[in-house]
């Protein structure tokens, strides 16, 4: 978590915005009734739900693989991963393609993509890790925007943890 924020600060400093509060752009997605934010710099692409090919003998949150312009990408159900009910694919369901340094590109399924918000540092409240509830693991901060709360996803824990299992 620490590391993530340092890199943010660095990259923005590099663009010459020194002195101003650092801001990060998040894409706000909906899962059920909750809103989650994904750091925009990790997002490669957002695609509609498409036909997936199931892969046998993998954890159930790994929904399968899709063909994205000739590349075969694994797709994770964020709902199953976070212990929510299984996805119900609707017209608003999207796959967000994340670009990760180690694992390459990975898709995650969300119920809806809502908007892009820009949060400055003082609008972000970091969460300390204090609960045994598995869900907290995947969120590293909460952002406040227009009176609403947005849980900011820790992409590293969402994706890295898979390999431990």
């Amino acid at each position, binding site marked *: 978590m620490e590391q993530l924020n340092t890199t943010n600060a660095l990259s923005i400093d590099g663009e010459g915005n020194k002195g101003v509060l650092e801001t990060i752009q998040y894409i706000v997605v909906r899962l059920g009734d909750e809103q989650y934010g994904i750091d925009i710099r990790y997002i490669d692409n957002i695609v509609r739900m498409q036909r997936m090919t*199931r*892969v*046998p*003998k*993998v954890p159930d949150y790994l929904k399968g*693989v899709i*063909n994205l312009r*000739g590349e075969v990408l*694994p797709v994770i159900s964020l709902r199953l991963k976070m212990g929510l009910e299984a996805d119900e694919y609707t017209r608003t369901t999207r796959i967000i393609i994340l670009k990760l340094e180690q694992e390459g*590109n990975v898709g995650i399924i969300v119920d809806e993509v809502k908007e892009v918000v820009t949060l400055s540092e003082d609008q972000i409240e970091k969460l300390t890790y204090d609960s045994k509830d598995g869900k907290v693991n995947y969120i590293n901060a909460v952002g406040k925007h227009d009176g609403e709360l947005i849980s900011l996803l820790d992409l590293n824990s969402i994706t890295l943890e898979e390999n431990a299992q």
Partner: protein
Amino acid sequence: MDVSQYLEIFLDETKEHLQSLNTQILELEADPENMDTINEIFRAAHSLKGMAGTMGYKRMQNLTHDMENVFSEVRNGNIKVQPEMIDVLFRCLDALDEYTNNIQESADEGTNDNEPLIKQLNDILNGTSKAEAKAEAPKEQAAAQSSEESEEKWHDIALEDSQIRVIIEAGKQKKNVYGINVVVQDTCLLKAARAFLVFKAVEEKGEIIVSNPSAQDVEDEKFDKDFTLIVISDATLDEVIKAAENVSEIAKVTGAPLVLEKTKNYHPIEEREEADSKQETGVNPAPSTEDKSGKAAKTEKKQTPSKPVVNRTVRVDIEKLDVLMNLVSELIIAKNSLVSATDQEQSGGNGINEHIEYLESVTTSLHESVMKVRMVPIESVVNKFPRMIRDLSKKLDKKMELYMTGEETELDRTVVDEIGDPLMHLLRNSADHGLESAEVRAQRGKPAVGSIFLDAYQDGNNVVIEVRDDGNGIDTEAVKNKAIERGVITPEQAASMAEKDIINLLFLPSFSTAKQVTDVSGRGVGLDVVRSKIESLSGEVEVKSKLGEGSTWTIRLPLTLAIIQTLMVVVGGEKYAISLGSIQTIEDVALSEVKLVQNKEVIHLRGTVIPLIRLSELLDVESTRSKEDNLIVVIVKKGDKLAGLVVDDMIGQQEIVIKSLGKYIKQCKFISGATILGDGEVALILDANALL
């Protein structure tokens, strides 16, 4: 100059030159008088030196420089090729190889100066003509020369007043003034270039105030074979001389402190000052010198570029690229005619099928050509083996000869890169364990020189590489005993094992029958690594052996890893691809033919009992076939093992492009990858080998 952009080319070419040197020196060893070979070697060494110099790899340059000197003497007939010399040269090549590897990893050549090697090279040179000895051991010469007045050519230079003033001034500033004489080698082709390098090298140490002939003349090559400099420097005389000597093809550098009074038209100007009263330390450098050293430091910095990413490259025959280009243009035409055909279609025309067929034929050819671009001859890998066998022959004290055929056989670049180590293991194995000692060979009536064969050829969609020797063959009894001793098998098992199975024990990890462990082979890490490597390349390895007559190791590799022929099958509504290479037959089996053995389903097919694997169960899907229907069984094989895969339906044979599932999905052992079907759907590839 920033040279990092040339690093890839440099590495590629260096490797090529080293390989060529290896081959040529081997030839030279066999035929020491062959002038063509010697010339070839000289050229390769020369290019290597030049390239290393350009890239700023000084150590590499020095070593190649000395090697080149030796070759040059050999070429001039001053040195005869001797076995010791060949050994030294091979060690030099190894050292160069090490530099190259260092450069590849870190863009830096490392810090090993390889002085013993350079010394040996110089010893070879010194062992011959005296003139050469002088050239190669100039340090003592320089000291000796400086005492001889007649050699001090710098005192013959007619100095101008202004120059004398500068010298006197330098003396005041307690700087050193030296006269330096540089003699270029007789064989030097680009005297001016060498002289220029000397100028540069010396200027790094100090300031050149006078040159005779003038710098312009020297640059225009208007000098015989030596030139004289007067240098003002903070450095010691030795440092300046050394700087000049470091330039290649310089035969001799002499120097001494300049004594102003001895110069030709010396006349006292103003206050006569002893120009040669000098102090070695504690001087403020003149601004000009400072500038220059500053510059020098900068260039040095640039010469060690930051760590580059060296990509793997494939050299492509221009013809292959032309074919590709043509196909792409055809593709564009095909697309255009399709577009116009659809327009016609709307207005009642026809012919779209015709165009689709055309498009299909173009894409097929395009596909083939792209695959060809990826193919490289295995030559690049097997070329290093003759040298290795030669070294082994010396090390093991066995006479042996390597015969190679089919070096031109082409394989996918990725496969070629990986195949070197396994082949090396097998060859070493043959040399160490396979071939008998000279006495045993004599007893058996075999020729004294053992033969190892490496044959490569294409066989259908596969490339076969055979390593064969006329040695002892595999002693199955010894293998059996060893296996029992190691607890791999029980004596009872051993008694019932077929010869072939016993030989296969060799491929188990940590299995070595060498009675004593040598550094050539016998650490028990060999054959299992060979097999796993080859299997990771979707290939297979087999041994045939006859005790007392020799053994043959056969490696079978797919032509390419990127595209394979598969059978598309359907299991529970999902499509899977099975490589045709592992499929033996497809059978229609009635339910009544399925028997149970130890509660497992088997079928009895033409005398063989084959276990059945119900893919629907394995893949966790519901079979869509009714339970009463006959079974569609795909019989797959791996080595001698067979298994029957029960599928729901078959789509047919299809050529597919293999795509990786990515690093993310690791759990799935029997899925070796995925492919994208014509309609954009992803189908998984079943790895039949992992199922058996």
